[in-house]
């Protein structure tokens, strides 16, 4: 396989995952802004969500007022925002076109159809119920692509690079959501969350599509300790760091089996796995949640560099 093909497959999956994450983040901010009863509260929720998504600086440079329309414009439709849903879908399709021959027809069609449909949407037609529909549709795009990948793609090196892109991006996303809001998760004098905390906790869980499954796992009200545990260490939670790292780990070993050699990428993955192995929420809090997450994000980034180095991305 060409090094460039591996690179394109890796980034194709990353961009699809990122598009989904952006839609989900926006949805969280949007919902919270709808339920806010305070003066200026709607705007605050949107801004807080943009901080978590790390698009606030770009937004501030371009817009004065954060309302649903301007934020939707920026996060969904703005091509100048490299993380907007539109930019992600376009980048995904561009990568897909480059590796057209390495994709199954089903994978290609899911991406191509998504882009063609999305490109035909006029932002001014999107409001109210249409906006909810669109967000749902964006998430569906990602699910369709993953479905096509899982059910049609040959389990070879191409599959491995696709999966690596997917889980490296997802781990990064979950870690960033946690890191932007880490302070609301820190143990405090009062262990009972106030109103603001509950709102923030809900936001974190929703951003990771975890607000309903949380109940299934913990049978408890929202608690900071549980939330950190859930999103960092729980192996059954599909967006947790542990889950992502487990997949990454298994996938690089698959590459080792296929190519018959261990590379620097394996060392980079080991370094991330070590951060989680045998760790507990108490120890993470003791170490410092922010410090832990920063280290995780850096180690996770190094996986991309190591893959590029080991498998001739360029």
């Amino acid at each position, binding site marked *: *396989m*060409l*090094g*460039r093909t*591996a690179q394109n497959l890796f980034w194709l999956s990353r961009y699809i995952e990122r598009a989904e994450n952006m839609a989900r983040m926006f949805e969280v901010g949007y919902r919270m802004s709808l339920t806010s009863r305070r003066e200026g509260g709607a705007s605050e929720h949107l801004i807080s969500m943009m901080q978590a998504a790390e698009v606030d600086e770009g937004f501030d440079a371009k817009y004065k007022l954060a309302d649903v329309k301007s934020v939707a414009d920026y996060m969904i439709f703005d091509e100048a925002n490299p993380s907007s849903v539109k930019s992600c879908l376009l980048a995904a399709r*561009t990568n897909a*076109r*480059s590796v*057209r*021959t390495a994709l199954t*027809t089903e994978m*290609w*069609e899911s991406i*191509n*159809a998504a882009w*063609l449909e999305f490109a035909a949407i006029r932002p001014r037609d999107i409001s109210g119920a249409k906006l909810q529909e669109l967000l749902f549709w964006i998430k569906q795009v990602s699910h369709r692509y993953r479905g096509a990948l899982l059910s049609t793609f040959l389990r070879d*090196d191409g599959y491995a690079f696709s999966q690596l892109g997917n889980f490296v991006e997802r781990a990064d996303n979950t870690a960033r959501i946690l890191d932007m809001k880490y302070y609301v998760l820190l143990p405090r004098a009062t262990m009972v969350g106030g109103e603001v905390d509950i709102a923030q906790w809900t936001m974190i869980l929703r951003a990771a599509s975890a607000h309903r499954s949380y109940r299934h796992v913990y049978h408890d009200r929202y608690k900071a300790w549980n939330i950190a545990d859930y999103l960092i260490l729980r192996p059954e939670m599909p967006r947790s760091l542990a889950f992502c790292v487990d997949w990454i780990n298994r996938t690089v070993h698959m590459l080792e089996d296929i*190519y018959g*050699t261990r590379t620097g990428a394996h060392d980079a993955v080991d370094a991330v796995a070590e951060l989680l192995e045998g760790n507990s929420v108490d120890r993470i809090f003791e170490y410092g949640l922010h410090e832990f997450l920063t280290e995780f994000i850096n180690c996770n980034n190094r996986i991309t560099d190591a893959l590029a180095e080991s*498998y*001739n991305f*360029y």
Partner: protein
Amino acid sequence: MSATPFDEMHNADGSIRDPYLILEEWLKDQPPQALGLMSADAESLFRRLGITFAVYGSNEGTEKLIPFDIIPRIISALEWRRLSKGIEQRVRALNAFLYDIYHRQEILKAGRVPEKLILNNSAFCPEMMGLDPARGVYSHIIGVDIVRTGPDDFYVLEDNLRTPSGVSYMLENREAMLQLAPELFQRYKVAPVETYPETLRRTMESVAPGGIHGAPNLVVLTPGIYNSAYFEHSFLADQMGAMLCEGQDLFVEGGKVFMRTTTGPERVDVIYRRIDDDFLDPLTFRPDSMLGVPGLFDAYRAGNVTLVNAPGTGIADDKAVYVYVPEIIEFYLGEKALLKNVPTYNCTNADERAYVLEHLEELVVKEVHGSGGYGMLVGPASTKAQREEFRKKILARPDNYIVQPTLALSTCPTFVDRGIAPRHVDLRPYVLVGDDVRITPGGLTRVALKKGSLVVNSSQGGGTKDTWVLED
């Protein structure tokens, strides 16, 4: 050439020509809305598959779909036999010509083709002198543009020996027809075109450089996803199981060509390159090329890799050289040309130029180095201002233009807004030359969708049809 163009479905008396009898019946049986629905199905099928092309000069990234007409164009076995004989003769002669002008240049010494026309031509590639391509083949992949003006009258409009495009449309059009009208294939014996990718593979393998162990490694070299024919590059690579590479994926080391894979360098033996000569290798050709592979031409020259097609083949399809093709066929094969050339006026000759300038309204003017219908004047469809513009151009640079009579291109029934109507068509059959000459039975039929229009180029509002060659 008669005033009413030859219609491929109807005889002059309105009766149906033999090859179209079954089709005509089928068309009559279709419920009123059926063709429209089929047309829409075909369009969504092509769009989903990503069969698009970029239009030069429009916004970057704009992708258009070449309109597909669901009524096939049908050629009888007998007609095809005649055509393919003529095509084979032509491509053999043109390859012999290329070999000669890049070696001893006998045809120039014999004065059969003017020396200056070749040696001073920008399409002539001096770097190719003395190079011996595998099997002596220069142009392996050829598309010959043919028009028909009567039951037995076929003219070659143009030979394409550089990187003829469109073969993916030939293949996808057939796929679409098989899906849309399977019942027609049960009633007609249509020669298959699906063998093309496998034949292309075999052709490429047959011209691999010597000394290779095992199957040669084949790649398609594309300028990348923004090229107008990118779909075709990826399609062909996929269909024949070759790696689709960009220049950055390849490198030259120790005089050999390698591709960069996830497990390190892998040797490349035959490259079907869809990058123009100028951009192929910044070390030898344009130094500013970002698309090519530095050192590629030297590796080729050293005999370590085969380029398909060879650089410098453009000299054989130069419009100014076109006039001499019948001469070229006679010189190398000792035969008369089986397919006719369109009579062509030479504007550097004062008498012919005077005639041309008098009759611009009836003639077609083509720029010698133009392509794709650009830089062209179609007299009967032109305005006075356009004719005036070309008059000045011809006077300023008579050697830069060739002029031909306007041919009454044959028409084929075509599905248009108001039902079925005749539209002008041409035909581009595809030829592969390696250990043998192989012509795919069929080709790309391009159709001018505008009523009365003679310009079939996709960039100028043309569409395509599936082309059926019937078997006996």
